[in-house]
């Protein structure tokens, strides 16, 4: 009896000690105040004397040249001689049969899958060497755009980013990249639920290991045919964009990420 009480007492004591040790105020570190940096306020003129990234300009030009070689221009519509119209008279009473169109009706039939799709492609990453320069350029522009936002982030916010989501500029960079890749199917019914949630598992370089549509079952529901078109467009965007523009550090934070594609805002506007 006494033995049991002793064990119980011991375990409870241990529990109290462990709980107390994990309380935040005990492990609180002294606030690490950053050194004061003096800032000189200057007048911003309309024009800058600093030349705009000459290196970047060269890279952009190189990339454009490469794209010119690879990406084909719009083919002009083929000029086909129009056939002379058959002038068919339709007097009020005597009516000729202009054309037997009933014969023209099509009978679409499904083709048996003669060819089985090889999945080699899915295994290979969609590495596009021609896109690297363009991506570098874009990232430069993005970082320039987001510098302001970064400056506004307070110390508290930085602290949160350590163990929470992406920082504002990290998220902005990723969003901007995907915005450019996502071709929204314009025929979608804008008054319906147009949200597709895709969960991704990423490699440290931002390429995709696995992608999964979270509401997969919706595809087969009656009246939700548009959802398949929307989900496919979102998957295409991710594949087109990879490797995704992810932070260089903190892989554990973002190795699993969820992208919520919502087309309603664009289609309603």
């Amino acid at each position, binding site marked *: 009896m006494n033995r049991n009480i002793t064990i119980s007492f011991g375990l409870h004591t241990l529990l109290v000690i462990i709980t107390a040790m994990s309380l935040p105020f005990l492990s609180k570190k002294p606030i690490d105040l950053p050194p004061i940096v003096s800032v000189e306020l200057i007048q911003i003129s309309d024009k800058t004397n600093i030349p705009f990234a000459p290196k970047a300009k060269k890279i952009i030009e190189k990339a454009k040249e490469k794209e010119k070689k690879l990406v084909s221009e719009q083919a002009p519509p083929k000029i086909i001689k*129009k*056939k002379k119209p058959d002038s068919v008279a339709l007097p009020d009473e005597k009516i000729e049969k202009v054309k037997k169109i009933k014969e023209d009706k*099509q009978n679409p039939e499904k083709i048996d899958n003669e*060819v089985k799709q090889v999945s080699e492609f899915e295994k290979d990453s969609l590495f596009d060497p021609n896109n690297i320069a363009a991506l570098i350029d874009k990232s430069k522009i993005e970082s320039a755009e987001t510098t302001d936002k970064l400056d506004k982030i307070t110390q508290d916010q930085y602290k949160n980013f350590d163990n929470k989501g992406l920082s504002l500029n990290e998220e902005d960079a990723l969003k901007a990249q995907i*915005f450019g890749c996502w071709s929204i199917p314009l025929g979608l019914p804008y008054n319906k639920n147009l949200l597709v949630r895709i969960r991704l598992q990423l490699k440290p370089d931002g390429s995709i290991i696995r992608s999964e549509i979270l509401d997969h079952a919706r595809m087969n529901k009656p009246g939700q045919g548009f959802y398949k078109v929307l989900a496919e467009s979102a998957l295409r965007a991710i594949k087109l964009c990879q490797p995704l523009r992810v932070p260089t550090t903190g892989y554990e934070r973002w190795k699993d990420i969820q992208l919520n594609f919502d087309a309603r805002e664009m289609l309603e506007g």
Partner: protein
Amino acid sequence: MLFRYLLLLLLALLPIKSFALIEVDITRGNLSPLPVAVSPLSIDVKSEEGFKKILMIENLGSEISAVVENNLKQSGLFNPLNKDAFLQKPDIAHLKPRFEDWNLIKAQALITGKVSLVDEKLRVEFRLWDVLGGKEMMALAFTTVPSNWRRVGHIITDKVYERLTGEKGYFDTRIIYVAEEGPKTKRIKKLAIMDQDGFNNKFLTLGNELVLTPRFSPANQMVTYLSYFKNLPRVYLLDIETGTQEVVGDFPGMTFAPRFSPNGKKIIMSFAQDGNSDIYTMDLENRIVERITDHPSIDTSPSYSPNGKYITFNSDRSGYQQIYVMESSGKNVKRISFGKGLYGTPVWSPRGDLIAFTKLHKGKFYIGVMRTDGTGERLLTENFYQEAPSWSPNGRVLIFYRETKTNSKGEGFSAKLWSIDLTGYNEKMVDTETDASDPSWSSLLGN
């Protein structure tokens, strides 16, 4: 044993560093045309020779793919890539596309196909591939008479369009319009019909009588139009499939714009009795005429909603010409347009969500759309003179006609058909052999 429990307890209590799943909301995308590769449809030597004899066409596979390519480009939603950049041969691509090659030229979708001559009939099979996903999205085959090859191209485009945009296509359709020739004061007007891409143009009347406002039935390939016979307005019914034509009736006074009900069983129009223009319907089976509006103002241009429950029309009952909506029985008349200027020719979208109209404001004509309650008015295009919008069967594109200004000598007049999509971009002139006005878009021919 006790030690084990203790260990388990300790493990459970150890603080574990875990991360919440990061979620990023993507609420914007690009609306630029989707890059598509339309590979020429492959054809075997025997079939090629056969089609050369029957149709006098060198390579039917390339011709059909050109129809598809042109349709996709004209829609403004797709960017067909230049064939010179294609690395894979059409026959091999149709069996097993090398997606890396198509990805290299930035194609996101690929269309391949095969054409063959089987028992004197044209057999076309095609496949749609998702280049980035590396998978087949669709595979279909069609068999028809060889002379029908352009329609096959249109049907393929419809299928591809539907699979990639989520809404039905509008390519396997025809447009009926009034072909105009001669000087403005002495115009010869004939009824004409063509494919939506301007090909296969045919004149349906000789031009001896004035024809006006041809309108396709939303349910089938019937057309109703107005013609003057011995200076009396007469409403005709024309079956495009059989070519048969009948007179619906002679109407006194001014008669305007007959239009079908959604099920094609009634015609709605306006005509004047005792100097007062009102809206009437006529049942095509028993020819019973029913009066819908009874108001001393001028009520014209009626158009049914796709479910047949409502009618939109224009009336000057408020003092100026505006757009109104009422129940199909004529009850609960409600004005929906309140903007500056005059509103006319309202047409209900086949999707049911919008009403297209012509607006006259400060001497300029606009084609615009508004919601069925009158909110969200958007003017799509502005010009010197343009009117009579007609919807494509999927409710995405409008076709209308536009007239140019004449000079002081009365020269330089022309009337042409134009199309514009709901975004207000992608405005295009539709090629016609003569001047053209009053277009009406058919429903899909396969329906």
